């Protein structure tokens, strides 16, 4: 059974329909990269998976549980805010603009959710955080505040923060789009490492190279639809849909 199961998902912002019937499955341990032009709805889809946005129609299941809703006496009811909060705790997220807590050190950022939300003992959380920082190549930055770190370092701390809750699913929302070009590589290298370790990852990005190297499957979205998906080789080297071809040709020329 797939870890993430998305069926006929629609989402509008006012009169603008951003998702127009999305179907998508992500298996446990799979790395899925979602590509597509700006405004194609890929970030919105990602944010619907952990209910940062509520969907208007359709079903999203994560690990067998419906997101934001539950069946009660064979009637579908919306979950309470508290229950939604609990559902999110198994899903890690990395944001485009990092969103580290600026008043906390790198280490404090990482242990905040494990200790405060998941009730992990502080000492264990700190040990785990040091281990994660070392994996990110930031062993010496534990006491640094976000302001003292480069964008690439901040994003790697944010990745460590997301890993610290031992998520079943890791969402990346354009993790390198806010970075200076010379810092993109270090973050992508970290993400490639993770992709090889059996984590379930859904990555929204513009980095075709990352999709080619690290993805198990590439999903191409355009105008609120999934128009093509398959192995990186199939979608990137031999796209069948004209709009995929157009999108990729723009990147290849660069």
């Amino acid at each position, binding site marked *: 059974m797939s870890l993430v199961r998305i069926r006929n998902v629609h989402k509008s912002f006012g009169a603008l329909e951003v998702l127009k019937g999305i179907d998508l499955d992500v298996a446990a341990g799979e790395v899925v990269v979602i590509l597509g032009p700006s405004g194609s709805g890929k970030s919105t889809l990602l944010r619907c998976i952990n209910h*940062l946005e509520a969907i208007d129609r359709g079903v999203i299941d994560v690990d067998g549980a419906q997101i934001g809703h539950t069946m009660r006496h064979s009637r579908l009811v919306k979950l309470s805010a508290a229950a939604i909060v609990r559902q999110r705790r198994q899903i890690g*997220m990395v944001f485009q603009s990092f969103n580290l807590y600026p*008043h906390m050190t790198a280490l404090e950022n990482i242990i905040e959710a494990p200790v405060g*939300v998941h009730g992990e003992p502080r000492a264990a959380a700190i040990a785990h955080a040091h281990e994660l920082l070392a994996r990110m190549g930031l062993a010496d930055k534990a006491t*640094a505040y976000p302001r003292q770190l480069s964008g690439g370092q901040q994003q790697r701390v944010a990745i460590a923060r997301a890993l610290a809750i031992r998520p079943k699913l890791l969402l990346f929302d354009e993790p390198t789009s806010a970075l200076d070009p010379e810092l993109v590589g270090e973050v992508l290298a970290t993400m490639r490492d993770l992709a090889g370790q059996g984590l379930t990852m859904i990555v929204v990005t513009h980095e075709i190279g990352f999709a080619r190297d690290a993805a198990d499957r590439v999903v191409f979205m355009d105008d609120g639809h999934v128009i093509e998906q398959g192995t990186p080789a199939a979608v990137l080297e031999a796209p069948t849909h004209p709009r995929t071809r157009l999108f990729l040709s723009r990147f290849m020329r660069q």
Partner: protein
Amino acid sequence: MDDAARDVARAHRPFPLGRGLLWLAVMLIAADFAWIVAGNGNFGWPVVASYLTTASVLEGLSVTLGLTVVAMTLGVLIGLPIAIARLSNDRLLGGLAGLYIWFFRGTPLLVQLIFWYNLSTLFPEIAISIPFGPTLLHWNTNDVITPMTAAIAGLSLNEAAYMAEIIRGGLLSVDRGQVEATDAFGMTRAYALRRIILPQAMRAIVPPTGNQLISMIKATSLVSVIAMADLLYSVQTIYNRTFEVIPMLLVAVLWYLLVTSVLNVGQGWLERRFARGSERGQPA
């Protein structure tokens, strides 16, 4: 071109004649003003000096300070939940908070104080009961409303309206991405507020709160109208007896200035602390 002679490192500043003259003029006027004040016996400086540390004046001062601390603390404690309610998506909560702020900011503090003091004419009894049901607890209003409780109720409920708006502004100043991060990590609203949002909002909350505190010191003088023996009331009591109105008011003015000056220094210190917190360029 002689670049060595034109090196800007060798430049001199021309003598600021205009500014020098301006300083001189201002000093002269200030000295003249001081001379007039010192030479005018009506100010009654000896009387000021003799009453400055009189027991009843110091008692009044302590009432003013105590009232300020209590009213300000209550104002913050009541203002915080009102600010949170005002920002909530819940129409009922937001509406009630808005109504509270609208009423308490929209009516004069002096009127509110007199209103609380005369509450017994409106409600001779205060009771806690189930709406339209049985009474659980009740008191005689005149036993509850003393000048002290009327002053605390009036000042703190009024202050809460202003503090609610200041705290709301502070909460709104926090980056939207922070709220998103707390949501994504499955934090409850209360936890996120306490650990992530409020600490960041404090930077925007502290400076106007210092302002409010200084306003409060002076606003407490209004309680003299409900016979609360604060600093102003105690000097009024003396000049009603001695008719030395101006010297006694000067006693009060000097104390108000002293207290607000101390608070100014304290506010500056707090703001520097928070500025340091935000500029974490250097390792601590």
